[in-house]
């Protein structure tokens, strides 16, 4: 082994604590990168495999009623590789643990064999016996939420008739990874069920003998999709086509895609932060090491080693630290990923999970971490080149302060010498001060931004469920009814207020852009459920035209004043041309609002309502449930408190849950930067501090010089950090917002204040730590060696 390599190993041993700290930061970044990209990869792969194995359709085409033979015509469409016709209908399930019946969907399975498309995965029990019309399979997640198992009986209302069924098996399906009740946005296992029944039983229950009401198609190549959708719509038009839609618009799939892309965004954003911190730390540690080894470097150079050899010698140190950190990170990322898989199976309800880490993620992790570390280290190593051996072996000349101010006049009287030292150090090294201010501000901005976002999540819930929706429950009817129904609801004892609403499913079109969704129509004097304008105030819906959310206007590339094509997908399915008359804010979903009378006028169906918002006296809740249950017109009731809880759960357990991790990381980084700023200040002034102590300055007086600089940096950073935090909030809010919910970016003085306090607390603690070291410093040793 060459003497230089021996020196390298001994240097490494001497700085083992720091080296370990850096290696661990690198390892954490690499671990997260490997684990998260592995998980995203695995989820993608599992989703694909699950869809493929259970033959999930590419196109869903609901109709009112179509004869079996139409399936052959659908199969003739260019690009269609398989077709399946099935019956699907609304149902209400009575479950023991709730007073209200739960909304559900009943889906047919062929009498013979497995379905060609949208197969189910039986998790327990057995398949249905086609001879027995009372046998059903129940969606596993729903069954578990209500403690139901094979062998249990369950009664359900279908098409107005109540029947009793025997659960023979529990099943999962890629079609129902996430379920949500009609008219609701937030998925919830317990509040929406799926029942599978034999085709013949479904035909009888829904009065669809020899007919189907939903066609499923699979498409050979993605580029055939637009053509297939159009052809299916044309072909099914005469059977009451409600509009064919592709898998990407299917609710469950859309939700899981959102979740995966949220995870992917975190996977892309978090690891680089760690690697940047590692680079920053390496830079600090190496700057100090090289400063301390000035004379040795000079000596090595004097022996005839070239700049390149000396640089390589020190670079190897960086390489060893980083590469071992990265290797550790790869291994622990692999282990963490493998152990997380179990959790993800549960959360995403996949029957199996393909754990697959792309080998490229190891390569990316290694290359990224080593380049980050190299960048950090090279800034320090650069100085080696500048040193001539003779200069290096002498103690460094005193830093030049001749350009800084010579205090005169009033300053001469006001400023004592330690204050002048602090001021000159700040003024003379603007680069260093700027760097420290940038670091501390960034740390504070990150914390402030994340804290604002944490309250943004609460605000999103609060706005959606307390400001926009002030009702206690939403009652939806089986079909649009006369507004007289409202009066019968009002007569129920305990109902305080009733407000009509109508929602219709539509496809909104503007040129080539389109969006599948619904229009929510509200009464002009609505108080229980209101549209809000972009400033958060109440929005009066204009007497004509449609009001969109900013997100929706963006999707459709349309502005107020433009004409929107509304393709109504129910009733007589008219095609409407409506002016966009306003923009409304919404943090949940992307609703389109209309005045109730205006919508009914446009549809040519005066005085119709499809549901009602209710405010009720909580003391009468059970009586109200009973009364609603007895009304045949009621298709379902959604209780706001349940919806709110489900929303909270989605935010806390889904991709939104990473916000807590991000907030913790932000806090750690803010502290790390402040602490390191203090450490650097101490390392650079240790010698001066020792001199002051020797001259008879007390520990406190000497610490003033050390901490004055840190204090000044923190004071400068606070307003900058607050401003930057406010700006950063918008970017973070954008990152956390999904199709389902938006996280508002707002100015939160409290969050910025808290992050400022956190920075001050970090500064006080760091100051105390370095002061302690400074107090303990060996004066003699500090003075003997110049560095």
């Amino acid at each position, binding site marked *: 082994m060459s003497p230089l390599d021996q020196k390298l190993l001994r240097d490494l041993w001497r700085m083992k604590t720091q080296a370990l700290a850096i290696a661990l930061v690198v390892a954490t970044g690499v671990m997260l990168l490997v684990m998260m990209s592995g998980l995203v990869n695995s989820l993608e792969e599992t989703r694909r495999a699950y869809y493929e194995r259970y033959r999930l359709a590419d196109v869903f085409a609901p109709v009112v009623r179509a004869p079996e033979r139409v399936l052959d015509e659908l199969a003739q469409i260019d690009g269609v590789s398989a077709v399946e016709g099935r019956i699907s209908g609304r149902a209400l399930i009575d479950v023991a643990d709730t007073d209200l019946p739960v909304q559900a969907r009943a889906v047919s399975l062929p009498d013979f064999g497995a379905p060609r498309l949208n197969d189910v995965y039986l998790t327990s029990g057995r398949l249905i016996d086609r001879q027995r019309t009372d046998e059903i399979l129940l969606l596993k997640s729903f069954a578990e939420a209500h403690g139901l198992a094979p062998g249990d009986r369950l009664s359900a209302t279908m098409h107005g008739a109540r029947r009793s069924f025997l659960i023979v098996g529990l099943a999962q399906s890629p079609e129902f990874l996430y379920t949500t009740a009609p008219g609701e946005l937030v998925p919830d296992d317990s509040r929406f069920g799926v029942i599978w029944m034999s085709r013949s039983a479904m035909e009888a229950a829904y009065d669809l003998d020899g007919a189907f009401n939903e066609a499923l198609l699979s498409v050979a190549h993605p580029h055939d999709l637009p053509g297939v959708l159009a052809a299916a719509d044309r072909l099914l038009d005469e059977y009451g086509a409600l509009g064919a839609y592709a898998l990407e618009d299917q609710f469950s799939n859309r939700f899981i895609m959102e979740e995966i892309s949220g995870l992917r965004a975190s996977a892309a954003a978090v690891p680089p932060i760690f690697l940047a911190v590692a680079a920053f730390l390496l830079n600090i540690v190496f700057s100090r090491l090289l400063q301390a080894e000035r004379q040795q470097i000079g000596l090595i150079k004097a022996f005839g080693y070239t700049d390149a050899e000396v640089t390589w010698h020190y670079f190897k140190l960086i390489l060893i630290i980083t590469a071992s950190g990265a290797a550790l990170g790869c291994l622990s990322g692999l282990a963490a990923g493998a152990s997380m898989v179990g959790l993800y199976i549960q959360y995403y309800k996949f029957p199996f999970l393909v754990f697959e880490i792309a080998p490229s993620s190891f390569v990316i992790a290694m290359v990224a971490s080593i380049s980050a570390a190299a960048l950090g280290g090279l800034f320090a190593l650069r100085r080696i080149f500048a040193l001539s051996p003779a200069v290096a072996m002498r103690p460094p000349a005193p830093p*030049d302060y001749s350009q800084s101010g010579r205090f005169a006049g009033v300053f001469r009287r006001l400023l004592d010498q330690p204050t002048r030292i602090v001021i000159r150090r700040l003024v003379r090294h603007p680069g260093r001060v700027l760097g420290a201010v940038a670091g501390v501000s960034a740390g504070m901005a990150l914390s402030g931004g994340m804290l604002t976002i944490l309250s943004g999540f609460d605000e999103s819930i609060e706005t959606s469920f307390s400001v926009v929706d002030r009702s206690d429950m939403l009652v939806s009817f089986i079909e649009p009814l006369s507004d007289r129904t409202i009066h019968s609801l009002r007569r129920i004892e305990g109902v305080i207020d009733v407000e009509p609403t109508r929602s219709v499913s539509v496809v909104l079109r503007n040129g080539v852009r389109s969006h599948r969704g619904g229009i929510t129509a509200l009464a002009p004097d609505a108080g229980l459920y209101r549209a809000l304008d972009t400033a958060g105030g109440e929005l009066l819906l204009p007497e004509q035209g449609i009001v969109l959310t900013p997100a929706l206007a963006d999707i459709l590339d349309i502005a107020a004043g433009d004409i929107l094509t509304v393709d109504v997908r129910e009733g007589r399915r008219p095609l409407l041309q409506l002016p966009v008359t306003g923009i409304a804010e919404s943090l949940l979903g992307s609703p389109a609002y209309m005045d109730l009378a205006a919508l009914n006028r446009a549809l040519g169906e005066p005085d119709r309502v499809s549901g009602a918002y209710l405010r009720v006296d909580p003391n009468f809740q059970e009586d109200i449930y009973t009364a609603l249950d007895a009304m045949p017109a009621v298709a379902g009731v959604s209780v706001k408190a349940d919806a709110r809880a489900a929303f909270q759960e989605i935010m806390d357990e889904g991709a939104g849950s990473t916000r807590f991790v991000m907030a913790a990381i932000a806090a750690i980084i803010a502290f790390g930067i402040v602490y390191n700023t203090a450490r650097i200040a101490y390392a650079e002034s240790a010698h001066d501090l020792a*001199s002051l102590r020797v*001259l008879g300055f007390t520990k406190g007086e000497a610490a003033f010089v050390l901490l004055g600089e840190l204090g000044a940096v923190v004071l400068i950073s606070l307003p900058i950090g607050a401003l930057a935090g406010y700006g950063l909030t918008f970017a973070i809010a954008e990152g956390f917002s999904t199709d389902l919910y938006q996280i508002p970016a707002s100015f939160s003085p409290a969050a910025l204040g808290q992050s400022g306090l956190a920075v001050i607390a970090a500064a006080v603690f760091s100051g105390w730590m370095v002061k302690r070291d400074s107090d303990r410093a060996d004066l003699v040793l500090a003075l003997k060696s110049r560095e």
Partner: protein
Amino acid sequence: MARLAFRTKGLTKVYGEGETAVHALRGVDLEIPEGEFVVLLGPSGSGKSTLLNIIGGLDRASDGEAWFQDNELTAMSDRQLTRYRRDHVGFVFQFYNLMPSLTAHENVELVTEVASNPMDPDKALALVGLSERAGHFPSELSGGEQQRVAIARAVAKNPTVLFCDEPTGALDSATGRTVLGVLKDVNEKLGATVMIVTHAAATAAMADRVIHFADGAIRDTVINQTKLSPEEIHW
């Protein structure tokens, strides 16, 4: 006989423990009368700097006693030692240890601001012949000038004792002589006890008392009957 500035009894300093322990001082007994110019000579590691650091209040003894006038240094707390350095002791080091961010004048003021009985900083700078350079920063001064600022800073508090560890070690002989001349003046004009640690044996010729150190103990002490002036010294 003059009052004693320093007195030590069995002063011992051990660094480290067990087999690797280094005995820097092995029971030193010493008496230094006030106002003397004392030179401590000896090879590296003989213990002379260690002695200076202990009686200067920078380091603590492992055993034994050290007294400054009537105060026992070895019994003082950190706070009391700081007070002692602040009020009585001036230090001059081989590498000057000036504050790079303060001008020559401000470096002197740094001390006069906190001392109990300081002299005018301008007077201290005049004493070392640097009145003209008062507004310069250390980076604008030569090595000899920096050392003279360090001396001015050390004497500006009107110290009772002035400790110099290799004050001429980093200087050429002509500059060194100037510095020694300044130290001689401080000793004679201000009456401060001056103790110099040096490798330059020739310096001994200008001292009242020369103490030879070897292996952590005093080998012998020489009282000079006739002293040379700094100008007469050559090394």
